[in-house]
């Protein structure tokens, strides 16, 4: 955020037309992170059985920088034959890996955590180039948290016997893991770290639009001397993922992505009864009571919906404000929105980066148009958007109704809907009026109300007087149609283990 420099001239109104500091009125100078430290090869192969190999059919696809629409690299498009090879490699590696002394298994993961920390800057730059997220976020959140996940689960490897009282544990086998494009490396870490700690081997498929950091992670896995086949990485599109989850020799599926795809996967696994965890969509209610610390709450709202361009399954996308403070909150929020800098993801001043893909941009536009058509009032930041690339201005909707698509459907972009409530019961009813149940937020100064509200929300993660916090020690996952199972913490081990009486 902007430097909190005390300045007597703090009354300068934010100018909508350029990147001026909110308090001083001075222009920001660009502060781009250098790219030269990050190497991106012209071409990346699949990572199977410890080796980088091209797809059997020779197919490749381009991965694009969404901020410039330039091609960054070409990566192999894995087909069914490659899925076969990767699953076979993981199967072959499983007996030795699962029987390896647990502490040794853990040490490999500790190594990975350290290697990632050492190359953090390079990973952060590539994450921002490939996915469009602000460098401040990839540098301060994505990459350090990914390393922390490996470090956290590394320590569990030789302590599994203490995790589940009255049960003996055993690994499941080969885990098929499919991850989304919003937190590419972090999701890879969420998937790989607990699976390996529990003694499974994995085949991971990164998202089509953000394959690069997973392929860089493959380099670290090779550097760490992990036995061949313990981790295999297949890049490709939805058809690669489909072939992977339908492969007859997998023992587990872990998926993070949309609820629609999650349901298709669950159905595809029905015949064999393959265990699965699903981290799916959300439409989180963010509730502001009239006794909330207003300025902190406004920052929380901004972080809740504009973090990572709103490409966050647990984003606080439905704001519910108590009537008495609604006017103040909306006024302050609009003013704050004008100060958000939308632009070059590599610029350290940037608050909101590029929309991840043209397809996602079109989906956001379509939903926003529907909001206008259905009668909600649109307010957008007047900040200029770059001419090239995929961008969407920070947006809020007031005068919304529960039945509108923008209130019901996950937008996955920097778009907030605002409605008001009178009583706490009304807030909870509105908050729970959704098939989703991933996350929620509450702002109030009353301790009893915090716990009353967090308890009443039917959601897996609830932030009180904060929002969008993540930690490897903290379980994450949804109620209802937001998913099945937990990732993170002790609870995140269970989906990768047989719990035997």
């Amino acid at each position, binding site marked *: 955020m902007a430097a909190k420099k005390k300045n007597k001239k703090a009354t300068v109104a934010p100018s909508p037309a350029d990147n001026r500091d909110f308090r001083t009125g001075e222009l920001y100078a660009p502060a781009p992170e250098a790219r030269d430290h990050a190497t991106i090869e012209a071409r990346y192969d699949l990572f199977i059985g410890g080796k980088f190999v091209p797809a059997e059919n020779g197919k490749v696809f381009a991965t694009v920088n969404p901020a410039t629409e330039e091609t960054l690299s070409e990566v192999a498009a894995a087909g069914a034959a490659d899925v076969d090879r990767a699953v076979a490699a993981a199967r072959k590696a499983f007996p030795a890996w699962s029987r390896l002394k647990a502490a040794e298994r853990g040490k490999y993961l500790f190594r990975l955590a350290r290697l990632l920390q050492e190359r953090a800057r390079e990973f952060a730059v590539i994450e921002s180039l490939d996915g469009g997220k602000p460098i401040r976020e990839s540098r301060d959140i994505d990459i350090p948290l990914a390393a*922390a996940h490996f470090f956290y689960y590394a320590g569990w490897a030789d302590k599994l016997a203490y995790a589940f*009282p*009255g*049960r003996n544990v055993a690994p499941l086998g080969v885990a098929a893991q499919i991850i989304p494009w919003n937190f590419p490396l972090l999701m890879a870490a969420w998937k790989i770290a607990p699976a390996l700690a529990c003694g499974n081997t994995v085949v991971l498929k990164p998202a089509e639009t953000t394959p690069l950091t997973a392929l860089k992670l493959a380099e670290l896995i090779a550097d760490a001397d992990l036995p061949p086949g313990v981790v295999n990485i297949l890049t490709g599109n939805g058809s690669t993922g489909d072939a992977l989850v339908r492969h007859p020799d997998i023992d587990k599926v872990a998926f993070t992505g949309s*609820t629609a795809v*999650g*349901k*298709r996967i*669950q*159905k595809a*696994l*029905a*015949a064999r*009864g393959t265990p699965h965890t*699903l981290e*799916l969509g959300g439409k989180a209610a963010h509730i502001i009571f009239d006794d909330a610390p207003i300025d902190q709450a406004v920052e929380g709202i901004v972080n809740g919906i504009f973090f990572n361009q709103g490409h966050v399954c647990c984003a606080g996308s439905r704001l519910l404000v108590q009537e008495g403070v609604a006017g103040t909150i909306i006024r302050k929020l609009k003013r704050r929105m004008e100060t958000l800098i939308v632009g070059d993801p590599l610029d350290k001043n940037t608050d909101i980066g590029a929309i991840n893909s043209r397809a996602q941009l079109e989906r956001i536009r379509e939903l926003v148009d529907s909001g206008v058509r259905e009668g909600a009032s649109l307010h957008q930041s007047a900040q200029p958007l770059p001419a090239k690339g995929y961008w969407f201005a920070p947006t809020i909707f007031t005068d919304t109704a529960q039945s509108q698509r923008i209130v019901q459907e996950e937008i996955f972009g920097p778009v907030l809907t605002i409605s008001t409530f009178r009583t706490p019961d009304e807030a909870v009813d509105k908050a729970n009026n959704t*098939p989703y149940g991933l996350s929620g937020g509450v702002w109030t100064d009353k301790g009893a109300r*915090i716990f009353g509200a*967090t*308890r009443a929300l039917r*959601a*897996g*993660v*609830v*932030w*009180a*007087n*904060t929002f969008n*916090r993540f*930690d490897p*020690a*903290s*379980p*994450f*996952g949804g*109620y*209802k*149609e*937001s*998913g*099945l199972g*937990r990732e993170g*913490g*002790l*609870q995140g081990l269970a989906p990768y283990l047989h*719990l035997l*009486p």
Partner: protein
Amino acid sequence: MNERLPVLKTYKLFIGGKFPRTESGRARALKGKAGRLIANVSLASRKDFRNAVVAARAAFPGWSGATAYLRGQILYRAAEMLEGRAAQFADELNAQGTPPARARREVADAIDLLVHYAGWTDKFPALFSTVNPVASAHFNFSVPEPTGIVAVIAPPAPGLLGFIAAIAPVIAGGNTAVALASPDFPLSAISLAEVLHDSDLPGGVVNILTGDLAELLPHLSTHMDVNGIAAHGQSDETHRLLRENAALNIKRLALHPATNLSGDPYKILAFQETKTTWHPTHLR
């Protein structure tokens, strides 16, 4: 002719704390030895199932919000009631085909299993909760909360013990249930409804249907307000269908292939969600 003519019981359904007949007006004759009629058993319809789900949804806030101590006392109360009527339940099992000695043993085991789960209500959350040491100035903790409405398919046998083994972990954890009784032991389930009704169990927490599984399965497995299904001793084909239809609204499933009658906190955990709460910590 000095023998008194016994008054026979009409076995109905148990929905929302009441004993309605099936809205379909259908019944199946349950025959005992030598083909004698024991009772006409209600054949619940899709509509009965849907009514039961409405009752279970209405009961969920109260039951899931009740203290664990209260839930434990109510389950224990059910065990007390069952103990007092042990002879009746043994006779009823016997009438449905369980030999007398085994029936008495089964009733005793069923009572003990209820007591076991009564004791879990205020302990499993301690077992399955965590305080999470996050790397920031936040207090962060995770607790189990009930999933919601669970449809329970009781095992074919044993009639009473199997039914209790199926429903007790679901309701001990604060869920509400719509349970389908074994086709071979429908009377025990409906008589248990009388016990539950007498135990201060709020209406709608357990709803009991008797009927044909094949007929009800498509409805039970596709209902969008059912959050989970516990099936006991069912076929692979039934499991496949339940899994496939679970994808409609991401139902949680607990599919027990064989009848597992032991008390087990992990059976409670099968229908619990983990809620994680974050709050900043500072002294300002």
